[in-house]
């Protein structure tokens, strides 16, 4: 059974998240990239306001793969930020990462009724820039030599994600039938 899942992070997940965030393939693509200690991670988790930030772990066939989040939710302006990283390197370039993105954006736009996402991304993070473009993000401006600012409207996302969703649904069906 090919079963992708998303679960909201709990206290027992936070050290796995810390382990992932400290891995070189993730850390150096983050804007804040200091190594995180065990206590720092506990403090970070204790300070999360679940109304405004939601962290999830995504998994495939009960194997944890990575993290997706929506953060800085502004319910008045209907605005949010989203992020993803694939913790398990053996799943880099796997469809599960895109499935997780789609789940989180659908959740933000359809369930939380938000209207717009925005993102600040390192220029060197070409994989995420390509991913965001495919999801309908539009480049707005450079913030400095290293960072660019992009936005995503709900309508652009819905249009851009139609074929991606169709393919993922077919793929999961195909796998579960085999």
């Amino acid at each position, binding site marked *: 059974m090919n079963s992708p899942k998303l679960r909201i992070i709990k206290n027992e997940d936070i050290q796995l998240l810390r382990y992932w965030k400290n891995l070189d393939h993730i850390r150096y693509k983050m804007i804040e990239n200091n190594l995180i200690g065990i206590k720092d991670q506990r403090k970070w988790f204790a300070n999360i306001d679940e109304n405004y930030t939601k962290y999830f772990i995504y998994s495939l066939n009960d194997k944890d793969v990575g993290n997706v989040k929506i953060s800085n939710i502004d319910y008045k302006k209907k605005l949010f930020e989203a992020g993803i990283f694939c913790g398990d390197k053996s799943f*880099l*370039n*796997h*469809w*599960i*990462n*895109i499935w997780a993105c789609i789940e989180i954006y659908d959740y933000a736009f359809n369930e939380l009724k938000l209207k717009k996402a925005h993102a600040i991304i390192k220029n060197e993070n*070409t*994989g995420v820039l*390509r*991913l965001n*473009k*495919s999801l309908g993000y539009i480049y707005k401006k450079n913030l400095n030599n290293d960072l660019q600012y992009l936005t995503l409207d709900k309508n652009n996302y819905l249009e851009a994600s139609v*074929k*991606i969703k169709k*393919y*993922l649904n*077919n*793929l999961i069906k*195909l*796998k579960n039938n085999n």
Partner: protein
Amino acid sequence: MSEINFKSFSREFKKSLSIKYEIEDNTFLKDISEFDSMGKITTSVLIEDIFKFTIDFETLDKTKTLAELYKVCCERSQKKDK
């Protein structure tokens, strides 16, 4: 079966992945940075549009070059039509 030739397939592949540089027939797909998780899904959608079948991720992972991918698609498309 689709009548698309390799040259057109290669052109569509590059266009859909926004690849600006040249790709040789024998370039390894794993060496094309645009052929990441989103790139593979984009390629899958392209294949579905052209060849009218859903390609699985394992095939995309196993296939070494664009020429080989084209061959796989033509064969699968022919089988489907029989």
